[in-house]
């Protein structure tokens, strides 16, 4: 199997699917000739031409609005929003339109569209190139929200997202984009949406994370292992629909949960996971549910590395719940 970065795996997924399904089109700012600012669509404009890989005007509302129209008409659009920090001008089209189209039309009109967008820190991008806005979208029935944490999952989940009959927001952690390499199956490789991944099994505490924070948890778990603490790590993978069963099973086993996410603590999606545990697993809990998160501030530029949850802070939380 070829070894790929996440950027390469995404590029591969797009190519595989565009070759397979002529209805698939890409659109977005700089996705064509330039191949995307991160190179995720490199080479595709050349292979598939301007009718299937469209550089658009600078309007996220237009990109998503047009993609919805294309999807209604029968194409399978994959729209790129250059940074998730710039998705807000399209918020109305996503939340009011894409997410509600099937419902409001009695199932007649559907929007099988994927919106790809980079999220999170890792590139010294300050608060306008580092946000992790998954919680905004997770609170929007009708929308699916997928966040891969490895190259292989990125390919498999992206193929599943493009083929999904509902609109999917596919969020790509910049922290992983080029830092992690792994073997990625060639050609067909689909990872089912709605299934969490047990990254590491352990018995003392469950670490729950997604995207760039999965790697941080792995580092923390390695450190904890040295200290005799056995962490289980769950990569949520799809925020919506959420695989509650896998999370509940793990926490019922370990009795302890630490949830890790990059977004500001208040209102982050980890709160929802905690609430689910507090509703459905409270009898199994032997300690408070802790969250290791970004802070209740915009994402800073210079202080980025302090803002981002890292293994040290995660380990601290693990120690707290284990020693509780």
């Amino acid at each position, binding site marked *: 199997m070829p070894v790929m970065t996440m950027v390469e795996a995404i590029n591969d997924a797009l190519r595989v699917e565009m070759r397979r399904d002529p209805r698939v089109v890409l659109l977005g700012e700089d996705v064509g000739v330039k191949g995307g600012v991160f190179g995720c669509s490199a080479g595709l404009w050349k292979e598939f031409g301007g009718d299937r890989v469209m550089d658009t005007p600078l309007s996220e509302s237009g990109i998503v609005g047009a993609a919805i129209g294309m999807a209604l008409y029968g194409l399978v659009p994959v729209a790129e929003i250059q940074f998730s920090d710039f998705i807000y001008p399209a918020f109305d089209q996503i939340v009011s339109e894409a997410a509600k*189209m099937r419902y409001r039309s009695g199932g007649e009109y559907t929007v099988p569209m994927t919106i790809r967008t980079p999220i999170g820190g890792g590139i010294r991008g300050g608060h306008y190139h580092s946000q992790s806005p998954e919680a905004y979208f997770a609170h929007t029935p009708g929308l699916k929200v997928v966040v891969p944490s490895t190259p292989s999952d990125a390919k498999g989940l992206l193929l599943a997202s493009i083929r999904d009959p509902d609109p999917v927001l596919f969020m790509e952690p910049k922290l992983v984009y080029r830092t992690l390499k792994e073997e990625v199956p060639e050609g067909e490789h689909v990872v089912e949406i709605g299934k969490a991944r047990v990254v590491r099994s352990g018995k003392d505490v469950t670490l729950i994370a997604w995207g760039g924070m999965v790697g941080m948890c792995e580092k923390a778990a390695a450190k904890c292992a040295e200290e005799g603490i056995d962490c289980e790590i769950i990569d949520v993978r799809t925020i919506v629909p959420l695989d509650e069963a896998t999370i509940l099973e793990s926490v019922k086993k370990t009795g302890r949960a630490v949830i890790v996410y990059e977004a500001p603590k208040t209102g982050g999606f980890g709160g929802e996971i905690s609430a689910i545990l507090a509703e459905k697993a409270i009898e199994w809990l032997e300690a408070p549910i802790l969250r290791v998160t970004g802070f209740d501030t915009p994402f800073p530029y210079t202080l980025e590395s302090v803002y981002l949850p890292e293994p040290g802070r995660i380990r601290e939380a693990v120690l707290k719940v284990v020693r509780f």
Partner: protein
Amino acid sequence: MSLELISVMGDAGVPANTPAPSLAPEQLLEIYRVMVLTRLLDDRAMKLQRQGRIGFYVPALGQEASHIGTAAALTADDWVFPSYRDPGIALLRGVGVVELLHQCYGNSTDHTLGRQMPVHYSFKKIRLVSISSPIGTQIAQAAGAAMAMKIRKEPHVAITYFGDGSTSSNDFHAGLNFAGVFAAPCIFVCENNGWAISVPLEGQTASATMAAKAEAYGMPGVRVDGNDVLAVYAATHEAVERARVGHGPTLIETITFRMGGHSSSDDASRYRDPKVCEIWAKRDPIDRFKAWLEGKKLLKVAQEQAIRDRCEQELKEAIDAAEKVGPPAVSTMFDDVYATRTTQQDEQWAELKDALKRGVVAKGHHGEFPL
């Protein structure tokens, strides 16, 4: 950019400047019938709303030519992205009044299952895309559908309708810009009825006209007498022909007037002088079309009465039918959010169903809905 108002029938102060489109007598009469039916539906629906039999309504009074005349210039393969004030388009494309009324009643026969407020129709069978309340969103979607038609090399057009107020929306800008850049076969119809709820035209834009906005997107803009159904047809027909052969989009401004309140929730006398309506009443699009048809000997008095009678009958039967149907089952609330329900939805429905079955939810509230 020519600001000349396209007119076929002429009007006090506006000379006719465009020949009548070549439409067969039966086509003309069909347009007339739909205009009358739309008017009668409008009138009855507003009454039903006042009687508390439906929850809400948006009158199209005075704008029948504007939306029906434009839509008449399309073929059945063309896609329509309407606003909430265009019920006649569905009727023209063959949907029965009864289907509109099921939707207004939000009952279980409504194929959108009572999920939206009245007048937010959706009919895939006639390529009429689900209408939503947020202003302007359909404009960018129509541009996207038209881009898809072009990508697929299909000779169809997308047409989208919106009001003067909607030209201020984000998606007006995005939609026209995308259509311009991609030379997409999209017809943008701005139904300029002078008002956006209580805000008059001059509070909406400082542009001399709405049609003039087309230049900003590199497309032709035309102004047409929106109460002259033949002028509206002619302008649209030309735009559609251009679009079909790859010459890109057009912005059509139909100059018309909102004769009623904004909706059944609105009392226009609080912000506008009713006298202005009197002027526009003289330009009534149905009266003018009737006079024109009569002048051409295409419509006789008896025939006109027969059309009206038929419409009234259809309407009466439709209301009776719609009122017979009960509300949708509660279980349908969880359908069609996703192609398949999530485990969270399954769980929520199971709990709710159980509570409803046991009757533990507040009395009188839910009794009326089947599970």
